[in-house]
């Protein structure tokens, strides 16, 4: 087991190296750099462009060096915990992201709990009553959740929340609480805003999860040990929960890996529509403005989390299910 974990950790290294190169290439690829768009912006506003200052900035941020040199500066910086500097915010990347992290985590965890609370009962219901009207109905609802573009659902729900409950448009708190310390009324205000993003982000995920719980549980329910358990007179609920449900949860554990980055990134597009102060819109804006260290380091951080998440779920799977072989993986 220890050897397995050690090997898996070693395998992460080449993956992360390729990832960092890929991310850097993608961020470098659009023509121009942040300074160029900065100069253009200054000119558009009719302000004088101080050439000496531009030269200084170019020097300072290393735009005069070759991309390969910059790549190595960036990577070696990250190794010692220096994620670079955001041009647009004129702050270190860690400070910019850190400000928004708390809210992002709140929204994400609320969404995950919502998804689980809805998806598990429905998935189990659909699997135990396959081809019933309820099963068809939930399947259709789930597909509908996938089919409606998220940003549109967000807009419509935000509008309805405003019309029905008088919730203010956009953001996570009423305007009068912005910048106030946390208090009971502020907390209630957050709660009244939270349900829109949670439902919108949750719908698509819930639909996918219901389908997978249903499929996995159906596979298990067909097996002979379930028939045996029933024949021996085990209570139907126990005969469902004790073994088949537990066995069908393997997929769920392997999903935990992808949860980790999702918690941090937040659903970008929905967050933009609802003007939530989460990290998603920050990342999108950074990509659009070519704020390259902010975008690059954040993407890198996300993929690091994915890799760690996959590692955690692999270890958990190997630990929970002895049938999963440690040496060969999936290969024959």
């Amino acid at each position, binding site marked *: 087991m220890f050897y397995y974990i050690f090997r898996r950790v070693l395998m992460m290294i*080449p*993956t992360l190296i*390729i*990832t960092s190169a*890929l*991310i850097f290439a*993608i*961020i470098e*690829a*659009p*023509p121009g750099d942040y300074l160029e768009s900065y100069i253009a912006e200054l000119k558009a506003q009719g302000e004088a462009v101080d050439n000496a200052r531009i030269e200084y900035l170019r020097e300072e941020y290393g735009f005069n060096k070759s991309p390969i040199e910059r790549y190595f500066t960036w990577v070696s910086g990250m190794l010692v915990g220096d994620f670079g500097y955001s041009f647009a915010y004129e702050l270190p990347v860690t400070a910019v992201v850190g400000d928004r992290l708390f809210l992002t985590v709140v929204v994400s965890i609320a969404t995950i709990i919502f998804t689980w609370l809805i998806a598990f009962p429905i998935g189990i219901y659909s699997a135990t009553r396959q081809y019933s009207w309820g099963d068809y109905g939930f399947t259709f609802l789930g*597909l*509908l959740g*996938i*089919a*409606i*573009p*998220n*940003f*549109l659902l967000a*807009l*419509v729900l*935000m*509008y309805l929340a*405003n019309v029905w409950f008088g919730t203010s*448009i956009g953001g996570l708190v009423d305007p009068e609480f912005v910048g106030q310390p946390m208090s009971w009324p502020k907390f209630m205000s957050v709660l009244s805003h939270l349900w829109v993003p949670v439902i919108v982000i949750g719908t698509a995920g819930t639909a996918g999860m219901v389908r997978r719980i249903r499929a996995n549980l159906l596979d298990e329910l067909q097996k002979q040990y379930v028939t045996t358990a029933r024949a021996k007179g085990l209570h139907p609920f126990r005969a469902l929960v004790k073994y088949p449900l537990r066995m069908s949860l393997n997929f769920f554990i392997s999903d935990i890996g992808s949860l980790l*980055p999702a918690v941090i*990134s937040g659903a*970008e*597009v929905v967050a*933009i*529509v609802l003007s939530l102060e989460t990290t998603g819109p920050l*990342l*999108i804006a950074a*990509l*659009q403005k*070519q704020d390259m260290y902010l*975008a690059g380091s954040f*993407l890198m951080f*996300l*993929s690091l989390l*994915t*890799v760690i998440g*996959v590692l955690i779920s692999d270890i958990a799977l190997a630990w929970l299910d002895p049938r999963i072989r440690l040496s060969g993986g*999936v*290969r*024959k």
Partner: protein
Amino acid sequence: MTLPANATPLPHTVSDRPFDPDAIYQFTDAQKALFEASQLRLMWWKFKRHKPALISGIFLAVLYFSILISEILAPYNLETRNSKFIYAPPQSVHLFHNGEFVGPFVYGFDFKLNMDNLKREYVPNPDKVQPIRFFCSGEKYKFWGLIEGSFRLMCPAKNGTLFLMGTDRLGRDVLSRIIYGARISLTIGLLGVGVSLVLGVVIGGLAGYYGGLFDTLSQRLIEVIQSLPSIPLWLALAAILPITWSPIVVYFGITVILGLLDWTGLARTVRSKLLSLREEDYVSAAQVMGANDRRIVFRHLVPGFASHLIATATIAIPTMILGETTLSFLGLGLRPPITSWGVLLTEAQNINAVALYPWLLWPVAPVILVVLAYNFFGDGLRDAADPYK
């Protein structure tokens, strides 16, 4: 699977001695039909039984046919601006006027500018009965930009209007724009899946059949691509497309981007299928009979998972349609004058549109319908392609 080191494969031989398959057991005609049916025919039989999939398939076929004749179906041209009817609400179709049967018609609008809030108000005027003309000569168009024509399925009455889904901020008919938008929205998914299918089959196929270093490398690459969040990646790639490109080139660029990020799942499927299939007895048999790699792959292995592959690809199409919608919504996808459903929805992206001009949300209806139809159709195809069900 592998021959001993010093052995050479035999020349490829298939015995041509006469062989009577019915020598041992006589089959009934029905059994014969079943046993002799090709894989495609078996799939079709199974597919027909899946009613939602069949209906979805027909629905999609009709839609794809419609994009061939968009000009004829739409009552207006894509860019026709009715400057007197900006943000006009949908006109509903009536059949009876004052208890008298007139046939399908709409009431013309009276326009008034509300001086309190400067909102344009359109009131249907019950005196203006404007019968809808069918199979008529309407506004001139250029069929596929080539042939001039004016024949349309339905047109507004002379000097009348026909806005069944209202108009947008330039007074363009929303229904007509949806009909034209189908051209882009429906094909972008197909082309994107085409790109990802080619990449997935080639890379996954090489990795699965030859294994070794290429396999390890491609697996790492797939892992890397899958570990990156998709929307930022789309954005970053879409930002690479130069602004100077013409809209039609951008359209192809976007399809390639959508395809570039989607092939990983397909490549994994192909690889794992090949890995399991190449251990099958019939592959070993072909090998000892001396068939070369190309023959084994294309003659024996590809037919084994082609149907499954097509079903998987079908299910990926709606993701691409939604992806285009999202990219266009963020202003990084297609740009006018190219009109897709996603581009149309960018008009409805603020809360004002939802509150004041809800008919601008109509383009979401075809998006939902098409995504649903593709999901059912793909499910049916996948079930039909699975020989063990």
